[in-house]
């Protein structure tokens, strides 16, 4: 490694150790790292948005005289009325469009992906083979779990039993989700440890050579 690379890597290694120090307890080193990364991330994000979205959607559209973009730009500027006490209500206009567009787009998308796709995928044939019996279990478990989400009915008696099976099903799902995730998280930690190891080896080689 070159001297510059060693220096950059030293910085990265120190910051890595600072974050890990949080595991022992909150401390000034962690607080320093936390504030530094908050500032760097905000600065990076500012310039990224400026050079991409702002350039594309604001500067270029105006240069190309895409008049349709005057409206969203005016709405965007209206957000800035929040700097003033008396006119901050104007900022509700862009928020209204923002929320309105988001909700309007979401309704059919949820209807398709969360409802139709799931229902269609769950309609599987029952029979007495291994796969067929599993299909029966899947359908019954989905129905029971949906029972658990009933809000306007008391979960007592038969209904209570069914919804209990439902919440048990959900818990199996959560247990499985938890168990499956551990591998990926460990892999991330291993990457950091290997980074530190490689750094120390490089450091040793740098000073030995």
């Amino acid at each position, binding site marked *: 490694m070159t001297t510059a690379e060693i220096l950059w890597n030293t910085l990265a290694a120190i910051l890595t150790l600072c974050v890990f120090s949080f595991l022992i307890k909150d401390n000034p080193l962690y607080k320093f790292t*936390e504030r530094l990364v908050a500032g760097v991330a905000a600065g990076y994000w500012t310039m990224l948005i400026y050079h991409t979205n702002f350039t594309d959607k604001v500067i270029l559209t105006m240069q190309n005289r895409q008049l349709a973009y005057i409206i969203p730009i005016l709405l965007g500027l209206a957000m800035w009325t929040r700097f003033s006490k008396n006119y901050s209500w104007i900022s509700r206009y862009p928020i209204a469009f923002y929320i309105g567009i988001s909700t309007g787009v979401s309704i059919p998308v949820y209807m398709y992906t969360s*409802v*139709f796709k799931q229902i269609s995928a769950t309609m599987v044939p029952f029979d007495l083979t291994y796969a067929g019996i599993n299909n029966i279990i899947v359908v019954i478990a989905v129905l029971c779990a949906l029972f658990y989400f009933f809000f306007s*009915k008391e979960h007592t008696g038969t209904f209570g039993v069914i919804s209990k099976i439902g919440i048990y099903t959900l818990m199996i*799902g959560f247990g499985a989700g*938890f168990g499956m995730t551990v591998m990926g998280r460990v892999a991330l930690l291993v990457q950091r440890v290997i980074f530190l190891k490689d750094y120390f080896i490089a450091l040793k080689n740098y000073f030995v050579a």
Partner: protein
Amino acid sequence: MARKLLMSLFVLLLIFGTAGAQEAVQDTIGPPSPAPPTNIVVVDRPNDTGHGVLVNWALSADDGGGKDNVLAYEVYRADQADGEYVFRGLSVKGTGQYEDKDDSPRINDLPNPGFLITEKTYYYKVRAMASGGVYSEYSEAGSGQPMENWFHVGKIPILIGVIIFWVLVVYFIFMARKGTDYYVRPLAGINAVDEAIGRATEMGRPILFVLGTGTAGDIATIAGFTILARVAKLTAEYQTRVLVPVNDPVMFAVAQETVRTAYLEAGRPDIYNPDNISYETAMQFPYVAAVNGIMLREKTATNFYMGVFHAESLILAETGNIAGSIQISGTDQISQLPFFIAATDYTLIGEELYAASAYLSKEPVQVGTLKAQDWAKAILMVILFIGAVLISMNVSFIKDMVTVNL
């Protein structure tokens, strides 16, 4: 520029290379050639922006019968009936249809020869390919125009679903307005809200409300705003501070409005402090680091996590645990629910997050929508069960009805 040209040549080669290579081996004497496909009918491809047609033909007599040696069909297109026919693509044997669509007028800044112009007439010929690299004669040409469509027929089931659900919601809201009282079962996570705010007040420590790492346009985040509104109103009454660190600028503006209005409605605009809602930073993990810092240094007594969460869910919940806070979480993200279940005191699972604002508001109109959700669930469960039973008996019409292919 030269690279771009090469790239587009390469793309063209990929598309047309197949046809050229087959023509080369066509002349060799070999097995008998199959009968050509007949009756070419070209119709508009439905449900599109007007840059696609469907080419239909009657199968070759040697496809599935006769000499039974057809492997595939090649589809060719021209601008005029007697123009130059260019290879467009393949369909496997037994298929009497080819979908010819291309909606990019230009590729790599060059005019795209494959592009279909809306309402222009195109001519198609099809020929059958048999084993051994022999071809039938070309079929007679058929013609048709791509048209722009104004309604997506394939989405009709979704439209019906939306309408039925919409009607249910409006009906139950209407009934609630007329005074019908609906029962809702208690939810542990909701019942804990009051207690958790009370605890913070007793301890004289602030409350933390995290809206997650989604955007202000995510519906789960919007559900988070509605819960924040109810929580903030309670904290205003108890005169407890509520800290809302956010990572999306629009979320920041909406959260400020939400909390300010809540304090106004509680009659305490005087104690509203806009600085309690803070924009931390834009990126996921730097934001999490900042929230961790707030939890430990402000010693928040109660933490709410309501919205869209990703991998940070467990980092937040474990740090809250170290700080000894009571934690109530809710998210629609299935992958993160296990961690909230394991590490927080109460968790609103999926739909419960959306129901929470109705529970907390206790307004009859809001509760009415819960009733509509239950009815919708009941209808879906019946359809699901009957559909599954019917499909077991090889009757698929219900499954076909709910299977939407876009």
